[in-house]
């Protein structure tokens, strides 16, 4: 039995009833296209989020105070006042800490900012020069906060580009102008370069002031909100976490690590959380798409069963002329596999086009996942075999006399 000839014959049979072939294929087209499009979409979202998180700084560790504990009630994380600038200094000067290269103590607060008639409520960050290194922040014009600004409690500020637009309008140079924060007049000395990000991730709507100015002049506090640490390499993140942890435990005179009043979060943790969230969504959506693929497969089985019944006489004749079971099975399996495989290929093209269209109309990346395309090829072929098997077997088990008699 010539396999190629059987294949061509199956192909020819399918072209006889084009509408039916087209409709049967459509189910698979829709199923495969939605799986491909949704996986691409999920991966694009994931990559966007990852690049945003990475733009916050690399090898980044953040020390945050734990929520204040009064009795047995645990307050919200980050709300405590136990971290101080001295802790940051101790991390720099400690001989035991070998894996941290830059330390940036930060104080964050919301503040009402006015400039002339304009005003905005945005994030005020008390920062040291190290902030720029740790968070990969660069200035577009002017200068970032210097060591002298910090030690001299200078009333200077560096604005994010969004804040500049809000306070001074588009395409203006705010350097040398003054703004007011909590009743204090502050001179603008620089504007940071745009970093992008939206919503809670917006790193451009921000006002930087020297940490000492924030603590002593603007907000009257003596603690810091967090200490950002840059480890010397990605490999020593865990070691850095431990070394800083032990130092802070002893500085805070805590013997039991379970009672620690701070937490150290690595950027990897945040990345992992964000990734696993998008991965969950991608899986969920692909699962829904896979159900439509299943429905498409059932459609193929249905059409193949109809075909087998319609062609009972033909099957009977073929068996009378000496076709063995496996030859009949092969003939009908070819037909269903051709149906699903064609559907799969059209579906892949459609899915890739859809995700390309989506990425060109939005800001997200265009990602083609080659493993998912390979998988789609295999799955569409597999569906043909899976759902074509029962009808093909049914055909092969027909008795030639019964089949020949069938009108």
């Amino acid at each position: 039995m010539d396999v190629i000839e059987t294949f061509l014959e199956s192909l020819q049979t399918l072209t006889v009833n084009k509408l039916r072939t087209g409709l049967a294929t459509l189910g698979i087209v829709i199923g495969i296209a939605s799986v491909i499009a949704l996986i691409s979409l999920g991966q694009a979202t994931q990559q966007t989020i990852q690049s945003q998180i990475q733009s916050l700084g690399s090898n980044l560790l953040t020390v945050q105070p734990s929520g204040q504990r009064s009795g047995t009630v645990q307050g919200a994380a980050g709300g405590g006042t136990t971290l101080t600038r001295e802790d940051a200094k101790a991390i720099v000067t400690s001989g035991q800490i070998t894996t941290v290269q830059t330390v940036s103590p930060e104080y964050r607060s919301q503040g009402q900012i006015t400039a002339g008639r304009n005003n905005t409520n945005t994030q005020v960050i008390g920062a040291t020069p190290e902030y720029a290194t740790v968070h990969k922040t660069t200035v577009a014009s002017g200068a970032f906060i210097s060591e002298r600004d910090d030690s001299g409690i200078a009333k200077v500020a560096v604005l994010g580009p969004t804040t500049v637009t809000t306070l001074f309008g588009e395409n203006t140079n705010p350097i040398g102008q003054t703004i007011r924060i909590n009743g204090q007049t502050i001179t603008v000395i620089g504007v940071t370069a745009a970093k992008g990000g939206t919503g809670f991730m917006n790193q451009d709507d921000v006002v930087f002031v020297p940490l000492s100015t924030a603590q002593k002049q603007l907000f009257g506090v003596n603690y810091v909100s967090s200490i950002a640490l840059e480890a010397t390499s990605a490999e020593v993140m865990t070691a850095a976490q431990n070394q800083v942890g032990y130092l802070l435990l002893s500085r805070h005179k805590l013997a039991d690590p379970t009672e620690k009043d701070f937490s150290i979060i690595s950027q990897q943790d945040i990345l992992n959380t964000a990734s696993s969230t998008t991965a969950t969504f991608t899986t969920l959506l692909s699962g829904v798409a896979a159900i439509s693929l299943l429905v498409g497969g059932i459609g193929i089985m249905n059409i193949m069963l109809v075909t087998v019944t319609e062609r009972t006489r033909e099957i009977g004749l073929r068996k009378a002329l000496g076709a063995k079971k496996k030859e009949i099975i092969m003939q009908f399996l070819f037909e269903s596999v051709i149906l699903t495989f064609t559907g799969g290929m059209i579906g892949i093209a459609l899915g890739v086009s859809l995700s390309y269209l989506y990425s060109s109309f939005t800001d997200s990346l265009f990602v083609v996942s080659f493993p998912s395309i390979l998988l789609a090829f295999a799955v569409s072929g597999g569906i043909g075999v899976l759902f074509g098997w029962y009808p093909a077997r049914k055909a092969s088990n027909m008795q030639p006399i019964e089949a020949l008699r069938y009108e």
Partner: protein
Amino acid sequence: MTTIIQANNLSKVYKTGVLETTALAGVSFTIAKGEFVAIMGPSGSGKSTLMHILGALDTPTSGEYILDGENVSTLQDDELAEIRNKKIGFIFQAFNLLPRTTALQNVMLPMRYAGIPKEKRLTIAQKYLTMVGLGERLNHTSNQLSGGQQQRVAIARGLAMNPSILLADEPTGNIASNQANEVMEIFQQINEQGHTIVMITHEPDIAAHAKRIITIRDGKLVDDRKNEKQRRIKN
């Protein structure tokens, strides 16, 4: 003369629930190589059942059927398929050609199942189609051919594997009488070339073309005689 068909006490009983219907009740005969036998009988006589058993489309309930030295009575589905492919050429009342398929492809089909290479299949198919007078219509599909022409394609298909017997089931039942004569003429021609033909019919006019007539009634063989007045179409 070599025996091609040996039927020993063939019987077939159909069971529907508790009801048993006897279609064949012990039929025995032998057919030698080169014979042209008509099996006659009214409808319900069991001749169709006999044809199915002789065609290896069905197996007898009891008795023994030996075709060209091989005991067919006890074979399984795929073994029967092989017997049908190699030893039996079928000619059906309704022609049973594949739709939308050319005369050539129809004749090549049984050879495809036998695994004969394509070039050889093509040569053989052309040879037999030319022999039945369709040398000019090799690439016509069945809906482009008349009933008689379709039946001639079926004869060429039946001969393609050079089978031990040609088994025809009411071969003229669906075609006009003048075309029926053409078909009978071809039957006599190929019989003279040495092919064994077994033809099932209920029409005495058609049976008259055979050399020997076996008559079946109520599942039993009632008459088996040489046809002294064989009707010849030509010479």
